[in-house]
Each structure stands twice: as C-alpha cells, then as structure tokens.
C-alpha cells in the first residue's frame, strides 16, 4: 500500500486531483514546443456524420490548437459519406504541409468499416494511435504515440507521485493497479501503460461486475482507473483506504428537476472520504486529454523536422520534467 503523508489519520478526506492545473502546465509546454518547430505543427480533425459529442470535442480541439499556436483544420463529411470519400479526405489531409497530426473522430457512422478507415490514417500522423501498427507498437512497449485518454490518466498519476516526492519511474513497482473497462481507446492501452511501469495490472470490466466480483478487485487497488461508462459505478466502500482513483467516465445524468449535469464513473463524495486522491469529473482527465492530442501533433511535427526519432515516452517523467519549473 502507498504511504502518503497524513495517511495515518483515520478520518481524513483525500486530495482532489486538479486536472485543469495539470492541463495548463502541459499546454504551456506544448505551446513552447509548437513555437520552436520551424515549419509549425498542425492538427486536422475529421468528423463524419453529426454526433453531437464528437462535434463538441472537435470544436474544443480547434480552440485548444489556436491557444497553443498549433494550426488547426476542421473537416466534416456527411453521415452518408462513402469509404472512398473518407479515405480520399484522409489522403487530402496527408498532403497538407500544415498538418502534422490527424484525428478521425468516433463514433463513425455504422455504415463505415471502422478498421479500414483507421488503417488509412498515415501512422506518423495518427495522434490517437488507432492504426493497428501504432496499437501494436504501444502493446510491444515502444509506442509512436500514446493515446490521449490513458496518457492523461498516467500523466495525472505520475504528476501526483512527483508532488508526493516519489519517482514515478519506480513508484509503481509491485503496486496493484486495477483498471475497470477494456475499451480500445482507454482500458486496454491503460493496462499496457501500467505494465510498462511494473505494476501488477488487473483488468476488470462489465463481465467482472456481472459475476459480482468487481468490488473484491477494486478493494485491493493501490491505484484504480475507471473507464466503464456507468455513472457512479464505484463508491467509497469499494475502495482501499489511501488509494489513488482516476475517473475517466463522463456521463450526462438528469436530476429530479430535469436538469442535466456531468458525473463520472466514481461517486466522488463517498470516494474522497476513503481514497488518498481522486480525480473529479468534470475537471479531471478531460482537460489533460485535449492538451495531449495537441502534444502528439507537436511531437509529430518535431519528428518530421528530425528533431528526435525516439518513441513516445512510456514513462511520462521526461515529459513532466520538460515543463516542471
């Protein structure tokens, strides 16, 4: 078990992890690096169809890019676009000299074969690591890019460990890391990142809960990452005292008066009473995720100029030091 300061006090609420502050730090680093790229960095986002959440996300990336001095190209195709049209658009973005990174937003319309769309993305510009070659590089421990949401979760964890005076390159050794969710964009890559840090990784999901065994895993977790898409799935009584809890879920729920608000997969109020630290929703991983997409576009631009040919760092310590003052 982790021993953080003040961990001995029987009743002490945990720390709320400030995702917005970490995101501001990251944006500062991204802005500085973008400014140093001779021919500039640029991100293209392609939305196919009219998914509202994806559209909001696309505008957020565009706004963030302007803020960071990264060129932004916002593309939209109708929901009935053919595979040929989508692949053609990707090819058109590929030859745009301003664009160093690109992102095809999901969900795609059901009529499009997702695998073939994602395989059309040039791997060197695939900032969410959705191309199988990039997914494979990540699984093998030599990533070209880290997908944004799991990267945001570990940036938050690594950053918190630094704040606690621990070395993130060593602090995970032998810790029990429980991940709830097994999606391609979060749960599975988060497991890989945990393994790269020498954690003992437990991947739980819907079928763990169906077998009524979810809580026996979460109660053992030193670190818990929840990406289940189920509002308030995890409550304080399911947690190990002093653990660190990262909440990836963003769920819109309506209260009795019919107004809508966003909640995570973790019941924050009960969790903060037991855990050592909890990331809130909103204001947790979300803002870091947005900044990480831009980080990857800048990284791609730096590589294009031959600044470095290293794989993206699995350990975010170097990244953190680059903007730690």
């Amino acid at each position, binding site marked *: 078990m982790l021993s953080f300061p003040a961990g001995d006090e029987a009743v002490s609420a945990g720390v709320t992890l400030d995702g917005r502050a970490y995101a501001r730090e990251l944006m500062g680093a991204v802005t500085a690096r973008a400014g140093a790229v001779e021919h500039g960095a640029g991100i293209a986002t392609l939305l196919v169809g009219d998914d509202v959440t994806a559209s909001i996300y696309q505008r957020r990336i565009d706004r963030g890019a302007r803020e960071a001095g990264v060129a932004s190209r916002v593309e939209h195709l109708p929901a009935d676009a053919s595979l040929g049209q989508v692949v053609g658009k990707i090819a058109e973005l590929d030859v745009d000299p301003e664009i160093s990174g690109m992102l095809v937003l999901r969900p795609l319309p059901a009529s499009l074969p997702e695998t073939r769309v994602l395989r059309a993305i040039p791997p060197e510009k695939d900032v969410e690591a959705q191309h*199988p070659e990039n997914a494979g590089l990540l699984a093998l421990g030599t990533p070209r890019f880290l997908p944004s949401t799991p990267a945001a979760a570990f940036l938050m964890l690594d950053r918190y460990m630094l704040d606690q005076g621990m070395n993130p390159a060593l602090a995970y050794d032998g810790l029990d890391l429980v991940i709830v969710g097994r999606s391609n964009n979060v749960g599975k890559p988060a497991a890989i990142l945990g393994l790269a840090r020498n954690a003992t990784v437990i991947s739980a999901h819907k*079928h763990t809960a169906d077998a009524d065994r979810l809580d026996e895993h979460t109660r053992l977790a030193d670190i818990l990452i929840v990406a289940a898409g189920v509002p308030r799935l995890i409550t304080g009584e399911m947690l190990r005292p002093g653990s660190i809890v990262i909440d990836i879920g963003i769920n819109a729920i309506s209260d009795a008066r019919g107004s809508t608000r966003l909640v995570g997969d973790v019941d924050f109020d009960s969790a903060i009473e037991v855990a050592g630290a909890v990331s809130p929703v909103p204001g947790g991983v979300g803002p870091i995720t947005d900044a990480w997409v831009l980080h990857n576009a800048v990284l791609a631009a730096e590589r294009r100029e031959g600044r470095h040919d290293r794989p993206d760092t699995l350990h975010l310590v170097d990244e953190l030091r680059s903007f730690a003052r």
Partner: protein
Amino acid sequence: MGLADVHRVPGRVGAQRGAPLDGITISAQLRALAATRVRERALAGRRAPVLATVLVGQDPSIQAYVDAKHHACTEVGILSFDHRLAADTSAAELEQVIRSLNGNTTVDGILLQLPLPTGLDPLALTNLIAPEKDVDGLTTTNTGALWRGDDGLPPCTPLGVIELLERSRVPLASRHVVIIGRSNLIAKPLAAMLLAREATVTICDAKTRFLKEICRHAQILVIAAGTPSAIGAAHVSPGTVVIDIGAVRTHEGPNEALDFAAVRPLASASTPVPGGVGPMTIACLLLNTLKAAEISERKRERG
C-alpha cells in the same frame, strides 16, 4: 486489509478435478480439423496452403523444432518449404529472402524462426513479413490488430492456450485469470485474447507483492514465466485450472517454476509438461496457415 480477507473459493469449472488438460489429444483434434479443411479446399478446387519457413543458423534444437513444423504440415496436406540460411547471413540477405516470399503469390504463410543469431534484429526482420502472411502472429500490425480486436493472425502459443482451454470446456467469460509473466511473446497477447473472451485478467510478475494471495484468487492460473519462488500448493486454491507454459519458450523440458506434483491434487485441471501447451503451438501454426490462405484468396477475389 489483505487479499485473504476477500478471498472466495472459485467455483468448479468444466473439467474433472485433477484431470490433465490434454494438449496431445486436443492438438491431434486440431490437426485432424486442419486436414479436413485442406481436403475440403481440394474438393472445392482450391490448391493446398503453402508455408515457407526461414531458418538462420544451425542450432540443432531449433532445426529439430522447424523439422517438427514441416512434419506437421505434411501430415495434414499443407505444402511447406524450408529456407535454410547460414549463420553469418546478413540482414540485407535475409530481407531479400523475406521480400521475395512476400511477393510470391503461391506462398500463403511465412515463418521466420526465432531466435536469430546475434546481430540480426528479430523484431525488425519479423516486421518485414507481410501481415497477411505472418503465421506466427508476431508482426507489429498483427499485435495491434490482436489488441484492437480486429481480424488478423494471432500468435500461436497464446492461441494454443485459448484453444486448449476452450476445447476442454473451461469457461473463460467472467472468470478471473491470473497470468504470471509479462512477455511480448506469450503473456501480453494471451491477456488480450482473454480480455476479448470476457475474462477478468491479472498480470503479475516477480515484483507483485501478494503473489501467493493473488494466485489463490485465480480460477485459472497461467504460469508464463519463471518466478523467484516456485509456484506450489500454497498458490493454488482447490478447483483452480493451472496452465504451465514456462517450458514452451525455453525448450528445456519441465518448468522448474511449477511444483506440478504438489499442485495437481488441488487443481481441477492442469497441463502436464510435456503434453500440455507444447503440442498446441504447432497445431495452431497449421490453423494460422489455413487462415492466411483464406485471407489471400479473399483478397485476390476482391481484386
């Protein structure tokens, strides 16, 4: 709070207590299945699948392993060719051989036998194999496809474990599988395959603090690497299914990391070595070669 506090005795699984997970019998079933499919292809006017192996160097135990693969191919009607290259073959020469096999439309599967002599980069050279011919499932693209759940060719040893469990009627969905080891060749792809089959998956290693307790928590325990202390009766709850693949990778006989005699009376089923996972690997190579032949035919028919 320790793991023991929340420990629950796992439920019985399909196989009989103490029964072996019989890789010899099940791999024979898979080879018979492969032979049937080759015959069906012939009846449908399709040619026999073709496997090309590439072996660099003259290590006798590796040569014997490759010979066993060719023998298995012959037995089921898969044609196979062996490219034996001298131990001092350069990367450029090897690359030339692989590229020529990639371009040869009569070759369905290409297997670059590992380990390679020192100085040759196994991953870089493996990655030269066209993913649709990569019957060992070790290219980066097939690794990514496996993790993403896309169609592709999976690696043979973890596939063998899955086939052994499924054909022994061991349920995987919602079961807690504990894997000891985190190798790219076996443990990690096996974890991806188990997650796709809805198992809860724990990956441990020597640094895991409560290894004994976590292992006792498992309904299925897979030993895919050596551990500093042997896995014995203290690690196994009654009714656990125990799979030992430590021996497969080393080709050195029984895995010293597992005290099989102590574990067997507790386990509901377990893999003996030899006769457990070992024979499954080659049987899965045959299935992958058939799959590769079907992929290339579909590709040609699509134009």
